[in-house]
C-alpha cells in the first residue's frame, strides 16, 4: 500500500487566487492511499520544502504529489529537496498553475485542479523507484577528418590528457584549409597558421594519427564504441621515409595532382603538398607501374632509406573509444551542374578553390593569375557569387563564406595584377563575422572592385574572351563584361563520404547531407545519439573561426564526458519481458537503435542507448515492452480518474 502525501501550493495568489486550494486538499485526502494533504503559501520556499520533509517523516510517506507550477519549473527542486527521504521518482508534480489557474475561471479551475491532482496521485502510486543508469566510459576519442576542425578537436582533447585517434582518408592531414592561399579578413597565409597545428598533431604523445585510412565499422554506444579502421596500403613506410624526393625524380608516371585540381602534374609516387603531415611519400596504386603484375621498381631502387614496400596490404585496426567527433568537412558543388555558367566546357571558367591554388605561392602557377587556356596573365576577372547557392534549382541555402572569400579573391587579384579589373556579381553581401564588414568596405572602397548586384544571365566564349552578360539590378542597366577569367564561388556541399559515415554512426543527416545536430540552438555540436559530436563544415557551411570554435566546443563536450567516473543517464528506458515473438517491429522503428536481437531473434533493449520515448512500447503487438512510470496501466488509470 502506498502512502501518498499531497501538498497544494498557493503560489501566493497565482494559484490560490483562482483555485480553492483548501477544497483541493480536502478532496484529495478522501482518495485511496492518500494519508496526508495540506496547502502552503509557497511550497518552493525553504519553509515550504521543510514542511514537505517534515510531513514525509511524520506520516511515513513513500510518495509525494505537489500540486503547483509546471514540472519544468520545480520538479527538480522538490526531488532534490527530498532525495534522502524518498526516491526521486516517487515525487510527481500536478501542474495546476500554467495549465489551470492561469488559464481558467475560478469554479472550473478548482474542479480541474482536483482532477489533475487525482490523476497525478494515481500515477505516483505505481511509479517505480528508479536509480540513474551507470555506464562505463572508455576515455579515448575518435576524430574523423583531419581538416582544421578535426585537428583542433584532436589537439584540445589530447591536451586535456586523453588519447585521441585521428583518422584522415587522404595521405596528409590539413584538409581544405591547406589548399587556401590567404585567409579573410586578416590575410594570414593559410599554410603558415595551419602547418604548426598539423605538426603538433603529429608530435602529440596522446594522438594516434592514421592517415590514408577510413572508418569502416562502428558499433556500440556512448562510452563504448567499437571502431574498425582500414589503413589503405601506402607502399611507403612513413617511419622510414625522409621525404627526400629521390623516388619522385625517377618515377616515370605522370598524372594530374588532385591537390591542385589537376592543374599541376604529379608522379605516381608523390607527396600531396610540401608541408604534408606525415611528411612522407605515398604511392598511388592506380597509376603506379610497380605494384603488380609488371614491376617497374625504379623508386625502390632510388630509395636510400629503404622505405618502399610494394607488398604492403590493407591493415585493419580495431579500437574502443568513448566518444566520436565527426569533422568530415566539405566539397564544392559539382561544377558540371552549372550548365548555365558553362563550366566543364571552358578552361577559363574556374572554381573558387582552383583560384585559391592559383593565388598560392606553392600552387600550379606560383601565385600568378593566368588564363588557363593560354597561360597569359588575366587582366579582367569576373567573380560570380552564389554559384549554386541560394538557388532553388541547386542548393537553396547560403554557403556562408563566399561573400568573404570572393572579396578576398578580388583584393588579392588586385595585389597580384595592379592594372587588373575585378567585377563581382552578388545577390547580397553577407559579412557578419568580426571585422568582416570592415573588410568588405575596404575591398569596395580602397581596392576599387566593381560590385554588381545581380546574377549573370549568360556566360559564353567569344574568341579570346569569356563574355558575362547580366543586369545590374541597382542601376537597372544591363551589363556585358568581356573577361579573361571567370571565378565561380561554388556552393558548399558535404563530402561525398559523409553519408557513409552517417550510415556507420547511425546518425541523421539533413536534406542537404549535412550532419543534423541535436538542437539547432541549444545543442549545436551534438548528435541526437549520445557520445557523437560534430565540428566544422560537416554540420553546415562555416568559416575557419566558426569551425575552430565548434571543434573546441565538441572537444569540451568530450572532455566533460571523460571527466566522469561513470556516465549517468535517465533510468526511464524501455524494459523487455520474455513474451517477444521476434516480429522485429520495435527493432525497426526505434529511433536510437537501442533495440537489438538475441541469437533467437528476440528483441532486447540496450539501456545505454534508450532515450525513453516509448515508441516501441506502443508498437509492440504483444505488449512485451514497458516504460517504467509511463506504463499502460498507469496512463489508463489517469484517464479513468480524469473522466470520473
Amino acid at each position, binding site marked *: 500500500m502506498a502512502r501518498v502525501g499531497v501538498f497544494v501550493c498557493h503560489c501566493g495568489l497565482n494559484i490560490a487566487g483562482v483555485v480553492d486550494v483548501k477544497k483541493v486538499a480536502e478532496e484529495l485526502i478522501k482518495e485511496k492511499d492518500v494519508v496526508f494533504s495540506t496547502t502552503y503559501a509557497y511550497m518552493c520556499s525553504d519553509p515550504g520544502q521543510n514542511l514537505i520533509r517534515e510531513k514525509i517523516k511524520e506520516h511515513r510517506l513513500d510518495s509525494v504529489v505537489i500540486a503547483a507550477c*509546471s*514540472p*519544468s519549473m520545480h520538479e527538480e527542486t522538490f526531488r532534490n529537496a527530498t532525495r534522502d527521504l524518498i526516491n526521486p521518482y516517487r515525487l510527481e508534480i500536478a*501542474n495546476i*498553475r*500554467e*495549465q*489551470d489557474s*492561469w*488559464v*481558467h*475561471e475560478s469554479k*472550473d*479551475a478548482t*474542479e*480541474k485542479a482536483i*482532477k*489533475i491532482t487525482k*490523476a497525478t496521485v494515481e500515477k505516483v502510486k505505481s511509479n517505480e523507484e528508479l536509480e540513474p543508469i551507470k555506464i562505463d566510459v572508455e576515455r579515448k576519442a575518435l576524430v574523423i577528418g583531419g581538416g582544421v576542425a578535426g585537428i583542433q578537436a584532436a589537439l584540445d582533447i589530447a591536451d586535456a590528457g586523453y588519447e585521441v585517434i585521428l583518422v584522415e582518408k587522404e595521405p596528409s592531414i590539413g584538409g581544405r584549409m591547406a589548399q587556401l592561399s590567404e585567409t579573410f579578413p586578416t590575410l594570414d597565409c593559410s599554410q603558415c597558421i595551419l602547418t604548426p597545428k598539423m605538426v603538433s598533431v603529429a608530435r602529440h604523445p596522446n594522438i594516434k594519427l592514421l592517415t590514408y585510412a577510413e572508418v569502416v565499422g562502428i558499433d556500440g554506444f556512448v562510452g563504448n564504441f567499437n571502431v574498425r579502421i582500414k589503413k589503405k596500403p601506402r607502399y611507403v613506410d612513413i617511419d622510414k621515409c625522409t621525404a627526400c624526393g629521390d623516388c619522385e625524380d625517377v618515377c616515370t608516371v605522370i598524372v594530374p595532382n588532385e591537390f591542385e585540381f589537376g592543374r599541376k602534374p604529379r608522379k605516381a609516387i608523390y607527396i600531396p603538398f610540401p608541408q604534408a603531415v606525415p611528411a612522407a611519400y605515398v604511392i598511388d596504386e592506380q597509376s603506379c607501374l610497380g605494384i603488380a603484375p609488371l614491376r617497374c621498381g625504379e623508386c625502390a631502387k632510388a630509395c636510400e632509406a629503404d622505405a618502399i614496400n610494394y607488398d604492403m596490404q590493407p591493415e585493419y585496426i580495431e579500437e574502443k573509444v568513448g566518444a566520436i567527433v565527426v569533422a568530415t568537412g566539405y566539397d564544392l558543388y559539382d561544377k558540371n551542374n552549372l550548365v548555365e555558367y558553362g563550366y566543364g566546357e571552358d578552361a577559363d571558367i574556374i572554381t573558387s578553390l582552383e583560384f585559391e591554388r592559383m593565388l598560392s605561392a606553392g600552387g600550379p602557377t606560383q601565385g600568378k593569375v593566368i588564363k588557363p587556356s593560354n597561360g597569359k596573365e588575366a587582366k579582367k576577372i569576373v567573380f560570380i557569387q552564389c554559384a549554386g547557392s541560394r538557388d532553388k534549382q541547386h542548393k537553396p541555402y547560403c554557403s556562408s563564406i563566399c561573400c568573404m572569400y570572393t572579396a578576398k579573391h578580388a583584393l588579392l587579384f588586385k595585389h597580384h595584377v595592379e592594372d587588373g579589373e575585378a567585377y563581382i556579381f552578388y545577390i547580397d553581401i553577407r559579412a557578419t563575422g568580426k571585422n568582416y564588414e570592415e573588410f568588405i568596405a575596404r575591398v569596395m572602397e580602397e581596392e576599387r572592385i566593381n560590385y554588381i548586384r545581380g546574377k549573370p544571365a549568360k556566360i559564353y566564349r567569344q574568341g579570346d574572351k569569356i563574355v558575362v552578360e547580366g543586369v545590374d539590378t541597382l542601376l537597372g542597366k544591363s551589363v556585358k563584361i568581356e573577361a579573361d577569367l571567370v571565378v565561380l564561388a561554388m556552393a558548399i556541399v558535404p563530402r561525398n563520404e559523409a553519408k557513409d559515415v552517417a550510415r556507420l554512426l547511425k546518425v*541523421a543527416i539533413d536534406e542537404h547531407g549535412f550532419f543534423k545536430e541535436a538542437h539547432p540552438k541549444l545543442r549545436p555540436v551534438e548528435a*541526437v545519439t549520445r557520445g557523437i559530436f560534430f565540428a566544422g563544415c560537416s554540420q553546415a557551411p562555416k568559416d575557419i573561426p566558426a569551425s575552430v570554435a565548434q571543434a573546441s566546443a565538441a572537444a569540451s563536450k568530450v572532455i566533460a564526458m571523460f571527466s566522469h567516473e561513470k556516465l549517468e543517464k535517465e533510468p*526511464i528506458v524501455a524494459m523487455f519481458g520474455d513474451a517477444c515473438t521476434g516480429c522485429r517491429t520495435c527493432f525497426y*522503428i526505434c*529511433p*536510437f537503435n537501442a533495440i537489438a536481437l538475441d541469437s533467437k531473434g528476440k528483441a532486447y533493449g540496450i539501456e545505454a542507448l534508450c*532515450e*525513453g*520515448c*516509448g*515508441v516501441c*512500447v*506502443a*508498437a509492440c503487438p504483444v505488449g512485451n515492452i514497458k*516504460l517504467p512510470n*509511463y506504463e*499502460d496501466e498507469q*496512463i*489508463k488509470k*489517469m*484517464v*479513468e480518474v*480524469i*473522466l470520473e
Partner: protein
Amino acid sequence: MSFEPKIVAFLCNWCAYAGADLAGVSRLKYPANIVPIRVLCSGRIDPEFILHAFRNGADGVFIGGCHPGDCHYIKGNYHARRRILLTKKLLKEMGINEKRLRLEWVSATEGRKFANVVSQFVEEIRQLGPLEAKK
C-alpha cells in the same frame, strides 16, 4: 444546462506540454474541459489509450505533438500521426465521429496556437454533443 464535454489531452513533454505551459505563462484563456496527461513523446500514445478514454466517457481526445521534423526523439511524432490516422478509421467503424479525435502539432513556442486549437476543439465537440455511444 448546456452540454460540457469531457476531453482528455495527451501532450508530449517537449513540445505540446511546453506550449500549453506557455499559454499559461501568457495568460491565454481557454475552456477547462480539457485535462492534460503528460507523456514523454506522442509516439508513446497507444491507440488503446484513446479507446480507453472513449470507453470511460470522454467526448473527445486531443493529442499534441512536436511539429514534423522537430520531434525530440527524431521521429516519434510520425509514428503518432500514423497511429492516429488508423485510430480515426477504427472510430468510424465503431460509429464514433472521427472528429472527436484530434492531432495537433504544437511547438513549445506556440502558446497561442495551443489555446486556439483547444478552444476550437472544445467548441467542435460541444456542437457534436455527447459521445454517440452514450446517447
